[in-house]
């Protein structure tokens, strides 16, 4: 019964942690010459994830390239860092509620 919602939440959290990893990489390489910002198309990859395909990491276009060929925008990464954490917390809370429902069903059944 929980397969649907809990399963999707799992995919969602999994994908968020991948995105967070890319954000952490981008921040770590903010001063690396020639490094290009990497990210995933979240909407598309979430749909692919449910279908079972591995996510594709791509370079982000449209960012200002600095003189050393690096295009990491700290503002963008800081925003994504905060956004991913909040989304993840939300998903974790939803998953906990989901698990609590199952647990209470089990416990109610036992007492009756």
């Amino acid at each position, binding site marked *: 019964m929980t397969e649907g919602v809990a399963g999707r939440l799992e995919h969602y959290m999994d994908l968020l942690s991948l995105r967070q990893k890319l954000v952490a990489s981008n921040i*770590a*390489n*903010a001063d690396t010459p020639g490094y290009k910002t990497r990210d995933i198309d979240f909407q598309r990859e979430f749909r692919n994830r449910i279908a079972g395909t591995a996510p594709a990491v791509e370079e982000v276009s449209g960012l200002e390239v600095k003189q050393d060929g690096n295009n990491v925008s700290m503002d963008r990464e800081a925003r994504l860092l905060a956004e991913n954490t909040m989304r993840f917390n939300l998903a974790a809370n939803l998953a906990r509620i989901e698990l609590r429902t199952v647990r209470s069903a089990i416990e109610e059944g036992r007492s009756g």
Partner: protein
Amino acid sequence: MSLFSLLSVSGSGMSAQRARAQLLVENLANAETTRTPQGGPYRRKDAVFAAEPAPSPFASVFEAETGAAGTGVRVAEVIEDTREPEKKYLPGHPDADAEGYVAFPRINPAEDMVDLMSAARGYEANVAAIVAVKDMINRSIDLLR
């Protein structure tokens, strides 16, 4: 993909920025050093960073194959300034040449201070990433309670 491997990505960023800050502080300390073990005045040093797969002992082969693994950073090389040293006319100085000129390092404290600030900000950004990831890990652990 494990959240724990994110910590090593940000950790590599922190150590790279710290190594850079160390070189910059060294530059400031040696701004007027006229003697070095290699001979001649001190030369300004700077770090060049390179991206590399995060050093995680548990990183799975699959992640490396799909390119989903986090990219850490390391100090690829330390470059020395190749510009000619600055000559100052100080005939009484023990390191003065035959014409009375002393070779001083070509170091601009403003340049190093600005780079130092950038290194400190980079370090802070990596710390912020670790805090965010730590929060996510704690939330995941809370699911078990």
